[in-house]
């Protein structure tokens, strides 16, 4: 028993973790500053494996950070800036108290600020890393850009967010990288493929926000601070890849056109320029004047076997993508006043269409309603007074559905005043066993190039129903026989119990039909045997495996139950609508 006594909690996991409060004390920061630092540096808590060991025997709920993370924060230059800012605030308060206005001015001039460039570089060492993490930044900036310029946060932040989002949208338009769009009840989801990364963001509908009281805007503002820096650098880099000028400039041609009209409407030049950019109707200036699009053909390599198949698949995909990029090319759209201009202009421009709108709606409309060459007018009202013959009047959902289907859908379903078909999410990828709504099936058939079958399917359905019923009857027969047998036995037992002296006899039982019957019965017999075998094997499973197996099977059953529920609901709905139709017909007659 020699040597020093080992003390508890001086090695192992207890020393690898640090509680939040201890970390804060180590860094000599207030809680708010610590929080800000964690957000900026991307430090998050860590759940230890053995909480009690780490917590030195106590089971109190605490948040733990990795000790390494906190040590990493120790020599962060931003921390000093935080302290400087604290001092600055103290001095300013004192100056105010003493009413030394020149001092206040001087202090304000020398307000300490900090830059996050090095943090961005450190958190995202490569450009692709940054691009992968931009989803939240986009959603946040789009949200902040819709805030009113009063109250909740600095006006500069809002304008900066607006500027960055406009730049982003312009980039997506120019690179034509939008893939999917979705109108949800929360807002509009967009998905773009930028440099091979799928980026999804959510834009709220254009309404004034009802600011909740239980939200800490300081946290959101700190995130936005980080996100705007990241977003700006990404935009710069993206513009560079396309040889575009950054900050974005309009094409000289477009600029001269626009300049003539709306010079007097805006007080500030910069403001009007941002508006022009956000109109999204003009193309951007490039550093080097090049042709609009370079066709980047896949090089052909001599390959064999599987590789060749892969190659072909890739080629096909490439072609499809190219086709999708030119989805609306050659079409001329006009947006009515009541449709969301920005999102529609953005989407349409992404797929090569020409868009214009009413002059009163926004700057940047390039042609009038009266233009005869307009092919589609997007309208979201039940009726229009004056209609031109040579254009389609369609509802905005057509644009979204067409983009998701990667083809121009038939416009008939989306005409003015018609009931719209359901709008499906393009993000759902059904595996086998999942529920597929019938609309999706129809769409898939359309994509395969089949003509939509109309009105015939009703009869077919009815036939199907009959068949099913017959099957059911067969099953019933089998059951009945079993039942009758049992009944006979029971009857005999009953008579015995009553004490009647029956002649002792053995009644011949019936051999069950599938045991001697036709081929179909044999198949059934085999299936039954297999099922029985499986059941018996499951009985012999080990406890641990049985638990896992039961869990998996429970999950599977739940999904099937959900699918069944959805199909049943759908069927009920269709039956109801059919009945309504019939009633209407009857009334007409």
């Amino acid at each position, binding site marked *: 028993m020699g040597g020093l006594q080992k003390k508890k909690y001086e090695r192992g996991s207890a020393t690898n973790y640090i509680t939040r409060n201890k970390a804060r004390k180590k860094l000599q920061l207030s809680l708010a500053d610590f929080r800000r630092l964690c957000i900026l540096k991307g430090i*998050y808590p860590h759940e230890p494996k053995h909480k009690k060991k780490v917590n030195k025997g106590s089971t109190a709920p605490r948040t733990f950070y990795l000790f390494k993370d906190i040590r990493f924060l120790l020599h962060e230059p931003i921390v000093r800036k935080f302290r400087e800012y604290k001092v600055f605030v103290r001095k300013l308060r004192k100056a105010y108290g003493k009413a030394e206005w020149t001092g206040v001015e001087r202090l304000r001039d020398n307000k300490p600020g900090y830059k996050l460039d090095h943090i961005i570089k450190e958190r995202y060492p490569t*450009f692709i890393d940054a691009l992968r993490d931009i*989803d939240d930044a986009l959603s946040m900036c789009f949200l902040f850009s819709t805030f009113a310029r009063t109250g909740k946060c600095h006006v500069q932040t809002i304008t900066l967010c607006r500027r960055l989002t406009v730049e982003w949208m312009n980039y997506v338009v120019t690179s034509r990288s939008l893939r999917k769009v979705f109108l949800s009840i929360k807002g509009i*989801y967009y998905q773009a493929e930028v440099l091979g990364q799928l980026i999804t963001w959510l834009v709220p509908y254009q309404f004034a926000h009802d600011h909740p009281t239980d*939200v800490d805007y300081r946290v959101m503002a700190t995130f936005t601070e980080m996100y705007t820096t990241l977003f700006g650098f990404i*935009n710069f880099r993206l513009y560079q890849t396309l040889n575009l000028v950054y900050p974005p400039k309009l094409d000289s041609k477009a600029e001269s056109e626009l300049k003539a009209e709306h010079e007097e409407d805006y007080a500030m030049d910069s403001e009007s320029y941002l508006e022009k950019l956000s109109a999204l109707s003009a193309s951007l200036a490039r550093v080097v004047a090049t042709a609009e699009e370079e066709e980047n053909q896949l090089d052909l390599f001599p390959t064999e076997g599987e590789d060749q198949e892969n190659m072909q698949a890739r080629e096909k995909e490439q072609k499809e993508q190219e086709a999708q990029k030119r989805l609306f090319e050659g079409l001329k759209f006009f947006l009515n006043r009541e449709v969301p201009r920005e999102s529609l202009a953005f989407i349409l421009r992404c797929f090569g269409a020409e868009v214009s709108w009413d002059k009163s709606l926004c700057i940047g409309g390039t042609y009038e309603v009266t233009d005869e060459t307009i092919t589609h007018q997007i309208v979201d009202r039940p009726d229009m007074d004056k209609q031109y013959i040579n254009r389609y009047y369609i509802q905005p959902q057509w644009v979204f559905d067409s983009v998701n289907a990667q083809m121009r859908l038939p416009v008939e379903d989306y005409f003015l005043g018609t009931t719209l078909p359901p709008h499906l*999410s393009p*993000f759902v990828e059904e595996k086998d066993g999942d529920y597929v709504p019938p609309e999706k099936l129809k769409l898939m058939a359309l994509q395969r190039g089949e003509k939509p079958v109309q009105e015939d399917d009703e009869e077919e359905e009815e036939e199907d129903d009959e068949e099913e019923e017959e099957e059911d009857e067969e099953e019933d027969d089998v059951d009945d026989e079993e039942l009758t047998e049992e009944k006979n036995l029971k009857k005999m037992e009953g008579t*015995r119990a009553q004490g009647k002296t029956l002649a002792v006899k*053995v009644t011949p039982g019936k051999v069950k039909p599938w045991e001697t019957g036709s081929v179909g019965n044999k198949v059934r017999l085999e299936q039954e045997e297999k099922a029985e075998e499986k059941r018996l094997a499951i009985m012999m499973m080990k406890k641990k495996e049985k638990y896992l197996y039961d869990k998996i099977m429970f999950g599977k059953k739940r999904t099937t139950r959900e699918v069944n529920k959805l199909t049943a609901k759908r069927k009920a709905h269709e039956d109801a609508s059919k009945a309504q139709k019939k009633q209407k017909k009857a009334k007409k007659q």
Partner: protein
Amino acid sequence: MEEKDDEGESVCRLVQPEGLFMRVKKNSIPRVQISTPYSTRPEGDIRNTVGNIPMEWYQDYPHIGYNLDGKKIFKPIRNKDELDEFLDKMENPDYWRTVHDKTTASDIRLSDEQVDLVHRLQKGQFGDVNFNEYEPSVDFFTNEVMIHPVTNRPQDKRSFIPSLIEKEKVSKLVHAIKMGWIKPRKPKETTPQYYDLWAKEDPNAILGRHKMHVPAPKMRLPGHEESYNPPPEYLLTEEERMAWEQQDAEDRKLPFLPQKHSCLRAVPAFSRFIHERFERCLDLYLCPRQRKMRVNVNPEDLIPKLPKPKDLQPFPTTMSLVYIGHSSLVRSISASPTGQWLVSGSDDCTVRFWEVNTGRCMKTLEVGGAVKSVAWNPNPAVCLVAVESTVLLLNPGLGDRLVVSSTDQLITSYEPPEEDKEQAVTWALSEGPEHDNGHRLTLTHPKAVKQVVWHGKGDYLASVMPDNSSNLQVLIHQVSKRRTQNPFRKNKGLVQCVSFHPLRPYFFVATQRYVRVYNLIKQELTKKLMTNCKWISSMAIHPGGDNLICGSYDCRLAWFDLDLSTKPYKMLRHHKKALRGVAYHKHYPLFASGADDGSVIICHGMVYNDLLQNPLIVPVKVLKGHQITHDLGVLDVTFHPTQPWVFSSGADATIRLFT
């Protein structure tokens, strides 16, 4: 002001002959407080000396305080009640200027001057009528500039000669500006500057911690139900909506209610948009992140690969015969060693003998009590039945006449020993009609017998009388000598069942949780098996003698390999309810278990002669047929001695044969 206030007060005093004076609090509505003054009174000084106290304290007394002489001041004889008050209010023209003095309990009518004073104070004016607030002010100094200096001191030189020091300072600054050392302050840049941050991507600069970094998971992509115009099946019904609203926000499967809007124009703003974004922010910086390895297991792979039941035939597969005749639960069954007959004992106090092949009831014997256990002698055609508190030895008189007669001979050939020993049970030979029915011997036990078992040779039999408090639970009888002995001196717990080893002189006793194995020759305990069950119900021993199965009321079946360990080699939890009976087949590698869920499970239990190879246990068939009555299903199972058939008796008063 102070002075003036004092003055005002003094004036007041002078004005008020009755001695009332008012104190005025500044900045508040003037409150009238009336108290007796200090001024002298001509006669009958009724000043109250109680001081400034709540006068309610004197409510219950006839007096309201004390005068200067220490005499009580009595209340006026009759206080005004509400009605008086009202009449006063209506009739008295001076009511409005009457004030009640609490300390003297008398009404005082205010004079005109006093009323005027109150008015003035209410308006915020001075109490003194004659006081002028706006007297012209008198300047201490004149405002006119005087032409002559106040002092006669001559001016300093420095006041009219430019300062050299200042000149030096200025010239320094001018020089610095000229040289470009001092520059005007730059306007601060407010817009952030962006540049190509990743111009030099150095893979070596990536910190080690980036490998540890767990990127935040992306937001879930929306499904069909989030659409502004979803397919109708995704909308919630009225009931689902109610359920959704009543659930806690955390329990909800969907964080929002799916809604259908006829057109895009009708879609409102999402009220929780900022909330959701904020929650995402919180998740990003407050949630611990962990990489979870999700193993994609094919559930089919988890199922063990067992030999196919087809390859393990023969075993019983179908129900072929139902033996009907009993009117109550059939507790126990036993097959004759030839396999031709079957005996069953039931709660309807009968023992029935059946022909196995035809299902015909050959004989019914009334015994005076519910039959708990029957056992057919493994050697000749002697059948033994245990009835309530007695054990009967019966000769069924079935089959070969020679065997029947030899059995009778065996019983009659008994010669009583010379000295009678005191025995635990009494042996009685039956005579008369009972003898004709087949009764041969009656062993009257002191307590109810639950189970009887024959030894393999057929001469010895053991009976069990479960009793927690005595050591007389198991008795071993020798039929040829009509002797009975109690093998155990001590009570080791409630005995559930006993059994003889088929080949060696061992005796198995199952108590509630353990099975004890005794060596009958050495008269010692050789083994104690831990079953890990709560309550053993039945036990069976492999004909080889090295394996044992135990059924228990907690749905388990334990297989013991006696050579391996005292713990179960395998626990099988095949049944859903309590096991009631277990049995081994004599020749085939089969064992069966019957339970309260009405099923009999047949398992293939192969025991190898090679000691290194563990027994192979494969369930091969689940036989169903018995109906569950009073929560009881199958009560006993037994195998046919030669064929791969199994008999089961149930609570539905039937016996079933599965072949």
